[in-house]
């Protein structure tokens, strides 16, 4: 066993230390590339009062949607929360606080949190409700707003393949928010489809180095498709 071996063998162990009222940064876009088993483990644990930053909030009964069933989420930071009746009901009733954040700003806020950049300027959201209360500054004749980094007590993410050191490869558009989400969590937990021995991944082809990964677990995935669209031959 090496000090760099990040593999844990149970989902319980993977989320050890997760407590009520913590902040979680989650990877995934819609239901694509979501850490579905880690989300199920959060449901099983019954952790409450969570703040979750994730592009979407799942759908009814899938993804982060299942954490709404027992009111485990206090606040969502997301760019798009449609397709989810329970979410809508909890938001309308005021049970659930929602901080709508433009998709690119959300991705950059996660990256910034992992990269030691406490804040950055962006034109996105200037002059809109997103910019309200935020500092505005002009650069080269254009107005930008100041956005701050996001940090998580935990981050949960899904990758395709990993070595035991936590070096990660993602597959197709299941990459999405996962790399940045991982970097922004104090304890980052990643579930993958396959774990290979160290040395089997080409160093040039690793999408995210294992230094960002604290715990790694191999899982099996449903990979629910939201909009199955096909053409005929």
């Amino acid at each position, binding site marked *: 066993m090496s000090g760099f071996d990040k593999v844990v063998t149970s989902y319980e162990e993977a989320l050890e230390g997760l407590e009520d009222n913590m902040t979680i940064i989650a990877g995934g*876009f*819609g*239901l*694509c*590339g979501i850490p579905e088993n880690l989300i199920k483990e959060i449901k099983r644990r019954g952790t409450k009062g969570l703040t979750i930053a994730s*592009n979407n909030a799942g759908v009814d009964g899938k993804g982060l949607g299942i954490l709404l069933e027992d009111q485990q989420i206090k606040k969502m930071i*997301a*760019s*798009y*929360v*449609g397709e989810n009746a329970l979410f*809508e009901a909890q*938001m309308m009733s005021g049970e659930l606080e*929602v901080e*709508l954040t*433009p*998709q*690119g*700003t*959300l*991705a*950059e806020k*996660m*990256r910034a949190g992992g990269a030691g950049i406490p804040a950055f300027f*962006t*034109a*996105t*959201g*200037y*002059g*809109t*409700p*997103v910019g309200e209360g935020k500092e505005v500054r002009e650069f080269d004749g254009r*107005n930008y707003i100041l956005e701050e980094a996001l940090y998580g007590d935990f981050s949960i993410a899904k990758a*395709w393949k990993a070595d035991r050191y936590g070096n990660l490869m*993602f*597959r*197709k*558009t*299941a*990459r*999405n*928010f*996962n*790399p*940045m989400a991982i970097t922004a969590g104090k304890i980052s937990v990643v579930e993958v489809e396959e774990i290979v021995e160290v040395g089997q991944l080409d160093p040039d082809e690793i*999408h995210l180095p294992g230094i960002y990964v604290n715990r790694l677990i191999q899982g099996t995935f449903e*990979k*629910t*498709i*939201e*909009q*199955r*669209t*096909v*053409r*005929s*031959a």
Partner: protein
Amino acid sequence: MALTREQLAQRVAQEFKDGYYVNLGIGIPTLAANYIPDDMQVMLQSENGLLGMGAFPLDEEVDADLINAGKQTVTMVPGASIFSSAESFAMIRGGHVDLTVLGAFEVDCQGNIASYMIPGKLIKGMGGAMDLVAGADNIIVTMTHASKSGASKLLAECTLPLTGKGCIKRVLTDLALMDIADGKFILRERAPGVTIEEIAKLTGGELVIPDNVPEMTF
């Protein structure tokens, strides 16, 4: 006659140029991909992390790990590339996408756009729309010119919460193609059979009518 959805898509496609990287929003913008001329190549950017989006997959090709920003299963064209959401929006925010096409509820003659939220109704979120309108220099908004009850959606000032401020320079409606400059709409083309008077009546913001306003051709 007001343009059909298909005609709107066709007119959008006339804005394409060979070698353009294009982000197409959900709905009519997406349809425009069906009208890319044969002698031209356009590469579609999907903001969830794909450049070079292809057609919908055959049934046996469906891959849950390969979707577009509308969460639909898609394919990749040769020369496609995959990247993270941070990289995707670095590309968008940094102005590297040549053309962005998206829908809206309202546009005004200051170049403001409202497209993501109707207060009191369900708030679904802006997704990538705020980044897209802030990042692109070349944007076409596609929308109906007026509501079913005849209320203009091309206004002196947007009434709904904004998606972006002062960033829209071109609007294509079912009645007209308009540029926006210096706080005015400038009528560029009419839908076939639609009169300037009809357009003027249904346009809320100040409208400039050049001497020659040709009908669109398809």
